[in-house]
């Protein structure tokens, strides 16, 4: 199934793009996406944390992705 990734902060620097269309196996969870991202971009493994949001909410590792989800990669935040 197709997903649209959005990357902010250092995640954008690592991927090199603000947005990226990818294809993952149907039934993939956030945890699968995370593994595959780290495989493709090992720099993600060095971050202090790596979270994901779908529909403007943080989602846990076991969140099941669905076709055309927009998934936002959230590296360690640092507001304030």
């Amino acid at each position: 199934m197709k997903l649209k990734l959005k990357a902010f902060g250092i995640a954008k620097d690592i991927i090199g793009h603000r947005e990226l269309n990818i294809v993952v196996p149907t039934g993939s969870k956030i945890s699968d996406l995370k593994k595959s991202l780290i495989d493709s971009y090992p720099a993600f493994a060095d971050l202090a944390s790596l979270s994901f949001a779908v529909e403007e909410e943080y989602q846990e590792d076991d969140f099941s992705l669905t076709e055309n989800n927009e998934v936002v990669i959230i590296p360690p935040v640092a507001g304030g």
Partner: protein
Amino acid sequence: MQNIDIQLSEAPITSIAAEAHVTNEECGGIVTFVGTARKFTKGKEVVRLEFEAYEPMAIKEMNKIAHQILEKFPAKKVAIHHRTGVVNLKDIAVVISVSCPHRAAAFEACQYAIDTLKQTVPIWKKEIFEDGEIWVAAHP
């Protein structure tokens, strides 16, 4: 909700607007946190900051914090204003203002708000030095 004022703005912010929002005659104590761009970080000289936000979710998360403040503490009003884009030295990156009938709760609530904001709100800060730049907190 008129007891909550959330702003994410590319334009400069001041503490006046936040304090004005939370002032009300039921409250004797207002505590305001102002976070400014500081010149030194771990001994290195910062030239400026750049903030990037995932805006719709950042506003949502700031609203969640504001609601928590009104639920967890005897607070009446709360304002959270955050900058995006380039923030020069001494300029304000964030203002959080909380009003409570009594002062101890206002201190506690305001500190809770900024501590939580730094953990949950999808905003990223880049420190720009003369010879490079770094995404704050990215690495352990």
